[in-house]
């Protein structure tokens, strides 16, 4: 072995280039997620602490396992330099292990490898999967709005919206202000994809690079938002979607519907005066309808807010409260709401998320649909007649 082919100190590796090898590697990466637990040794029953999670350096995300980690100082967002880490392969993907032989210390975000936007591969929305990063993508901004949120103890502004290409649409959450405007076409590098409520979401932060482009082959936002309704079976197959439009009939309501009470702090619904997070609270009254919409091919839940519920029901929150004073049984109100909705044909657009109970739609618009009976009769009679 010559001195050139076996350097005494391993050179810094980008996570994208990790390969399972016998020689230890050195890299700089940010902790994306981490979880601490104890592993009980079989031989003597002693417990050994273990920290595991995901590391990312902007080129890729890998799983890590850290035996005997420091008691504190390692948390989400921290940048680490690891020297002498082992690389293994698990289910076809590389993983890193920090043992007593590995030196791990804090590093500055500036030491993270510089991601050159020109060398990462292009992706389409359809191809994006949670935990993906190190890609470029061209997108149309369909809509975007700023929102102030609390992260830990800190207030931050997040720019949330919807972006799309020809293959589909994906939710966007930008933690840095790129001055994005609806209708713009952009090329994005240095973003990553995470799963949020069962749907992938594209996340941009201060390391991401956004460039305006022509985007001639990107879809028109208006067209995207006005797409014709799809069958509910299709929406179920796709596990929801960012710009879903369906048309169906109300076949039921799920509890809690009607007059509900919400925690004044977190807006969660309050049961028996108790909020799941804030304990005993004075609930604020609200109207909602959890509508089961069915088009004969499938069914999904539409969570209608107060404004939509008032419009569909024709009863305002105040009127509902007045009714409650005359008939102090809230379930009667739910029944009257069902009475008003059952069998109604609705066209709903919104964001569909997926869980073990199926698809739930957070509606952006709910419209009543009336069938033109004469036209329907004519069409149907032609369909029956032409086969006689």
């Amino acid at each position, binding site marked *: 072995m010559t001195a050139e082919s076996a350097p005494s100190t391993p050179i810094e590796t980008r996570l994208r280039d990790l390969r399972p090898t016998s020689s230890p590697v050195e890299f700089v990466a940010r902790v994306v997620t981490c979880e601490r637990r104890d592993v009980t040794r079989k031989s003597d029953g002693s417990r050994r602490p273990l920290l595991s999670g995901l590391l990312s350096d902007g080129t890729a995300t890998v799983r890590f396992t850290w035996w005997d980690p420091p008691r504190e100082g390692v948390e989400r967002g921290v940048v680490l330099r690891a020297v002498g880490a082992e690389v293994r392969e698990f289910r076809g993907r590389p993983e890193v292990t920090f043992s007593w032989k590995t030196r791990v210390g804090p590093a500055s975000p500036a030491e993270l490898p510089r991601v050159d936007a020109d060398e990462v591969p292009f992706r389409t929305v359809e191809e994006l999967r949670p935990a993906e990063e190190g890609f470029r993508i061209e997108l149309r901004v369909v809509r975007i709005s700023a929102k102030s949120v609390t992260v830990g103890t800190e207030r931050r502004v997040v720019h949330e919206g919807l972006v799309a290409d020809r293959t589909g649409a994906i939710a966007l959450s930008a933690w840095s202000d790129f001055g994005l405007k609806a209708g713009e076409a952009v090329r994005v590098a240095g973003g990553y994809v995470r799963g949020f409520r069962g749907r992938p979401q594209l996340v941009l932060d201060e390391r991401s690079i956004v460039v305006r482009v022509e985007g001639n082959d990107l879809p028109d936002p208006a067209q995207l938002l006005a797409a014709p309704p*799809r*069958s*509910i*079976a*299709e929406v*179920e*197959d796709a596990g929801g979607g960012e710009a879903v439009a369906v048309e169906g*009939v109300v*076949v*039921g309501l799920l509890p809690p519907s009607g007059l509900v009470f919400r925690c004044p702090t977190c807006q969660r619904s309050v049961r028996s005066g108790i909020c799941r997070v804030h304990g005993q609270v004075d609930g604020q009254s609200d109207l909602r309808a959890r509508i*089961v919409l*069915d*088009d*004969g*091919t*499938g*069914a999904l839940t539409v969570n209608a807010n107060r404004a939509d519920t008032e419009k569909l029901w024709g009863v305002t929150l105040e009127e509902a409260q007045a009714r409650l004073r005359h008939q102090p049984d809230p379930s009667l109100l739910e*029944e009257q709401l*069902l*009475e008003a909705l*059952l*069998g109604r*044909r609705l066209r709903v657009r919104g964001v569909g998320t997926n869980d*073990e*109970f*199926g698809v739930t739609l957070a509606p952006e618009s709910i419209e009543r649909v*009336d*069938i033109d*009976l*004469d036209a*329907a*009769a*004519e069409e*149907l*009679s032609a*369909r*029956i007649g032409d*086969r*006689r």
Partner: protein
Amino acid sequence: MSLREPAWRVTARELESSLEEEKGEGERPATYLLSPFAARMNRVLLAGSLSPAESIGRDEAQAFWRARLSDPTGAVAVTAGSFQPRAMAQLRSASAPRPAIVVGKLHLFRGRDGVGYVSVRAEAVRSVAEAEERAALADIVRQTLDRLDLLERVEKEPGLSEETLRAEGIPAAWLRAAKESRSRYPNVDRAAFRRELGNAVRRVAGESGPSRATLPTPPTVTVTRAPPPRPPSPAPSAAERAEESLFLDQLDEVADVSADGYADLKEVLSRVSAHGLVEEKAETILNRLEEDGVIEEPIVGKLRRA
């Protein structure tokens, strides 16, 4: 993941023609009723004229009500019990037939003669304006025609793939139902059924179909489907009366010594045959006695005096 079963849009006629059941998969399998017209249904949505309900519960604590929903193609029983309090309240609320929409789960009862009776256990019932009933009927006829068209396509191209159909917005469940319908009901006249939908379309167009005008409110829900109505049986002869009393005597004897108070059907049959009554004849007597309400069979194979 157990997704909610969709409500298949069907006419009463389609339910009347459905005789085949299938158990689903999973931990708590759903039961599906297979129709000859490419529906594999657990839940349905129907629209039509709903008759006033009658109570059929034996036990006051466990109320059970039944009404009849007629659409221009046929009629089907709609039931609701104390487990469907809202639907039950809706069924009970009317004193005259009214246009209504019913969403519910299907129930197939197979009588001893092997004939199936389909009823709908209502989950939600709502009286609607006539225009709404017609709109719902339009939806029902449209989807029924869609399924019939799919059946024809499957017949012509047996290799039709889920992907091809999915691209056209036709769910995989429909293709599965179509294939199942074809294999379970090979000899059904689907063209005739298609023509029968004409009545429903005329109703969509606003012509009041014959159903509402001529169908009187039945005092009780009668089963309107196969087997064909038997000719009224002639009054039993003296010999038949003797056979009946022989049957009842044997039944009482068996019941007296049984632990649960019921007479075992097989034992009664073997005893009467020992007295020279052939089994076929004994069955006839049993049916007549059951029909006359002299004896009942609350558990299959177990008889008692009513």
